[in-house]
């Protein structure tokens, strides 16, 4: 069974530029999560989708971050404009349904200079 796929693996951008990350969850998984992991910290949930609807985006900085999950499958996370403090690993995870085991991708390491 293929795991959660994320791209790119690494991205370096200048502050005030925009960037987008892509996630393809495990086939059939209805729930999709985006987590932000700043160096030295544990991951923090940014947004959770159930199919193509948003369940929780309370910690998403909506002035600069946006996410979508069209057709309830793939998802993209965008940052525009990026700030230095956005440097982090962005992890995507998916689960079959809510409250079931979450499987994580390998993440995208973003460096904002």
């Amino acid at each position: 069974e293929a795991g959660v796929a994320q791209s790119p693996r690494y991205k370096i951008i200048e502050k005030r530029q925009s960037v987008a990350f892509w996630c393809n969850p495990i086939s059939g998984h209805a729930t999709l999560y985006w987590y932000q992991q700043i160096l030295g910290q544990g991951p923090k949930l940014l947004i959770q989708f159930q199919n193509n609807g948003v369940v929780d985006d309370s910690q998403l900085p909506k002035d600069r971050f946006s996410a979508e999950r069209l057709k309830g499958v793939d998802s993209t996370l965008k940052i525009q404009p990026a700030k230095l403090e956005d440097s982090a690993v962005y992890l995507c995870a998916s689960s079959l349904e809510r409250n079931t085991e979450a499987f994580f991708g390998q993440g995208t390491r973003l460096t904002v200079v």
Partner: protein
Amino acid sequence: AQTVTQSQPEMSVQEAETVTLSCTYDTSESDYYLFWYKQPPSRQMILVIRQEAYKQQNATENRFSVNFQKAAKSFSLKISDSQLGDAAMYFCAYRGIYNTDKLIFGTGTRLQVFP
């Protein structure tokens, strides 16, 4: 709000020996799940073991076991017969049952395994 605390930034163990990683949490909920995740340099979070709060029996998965003390809000991970491949960051995580299913992570413990 729920919080998870890991007070050991780094731990080390000799190969084949046993090591225990500590985790405490705070919650007002009575039912919840607790997890230990392993994050190797590849960055992928891998589930090691999970514990349901309503179960008194401590979870075990091969060489990994937990000591779950609900009253003390403590959830430690014991790794027996440590192997070089166990070297990684280990994160303790909490997940509620009723209002949310997001994972709340601690700050992690870096485990080094020496031959």
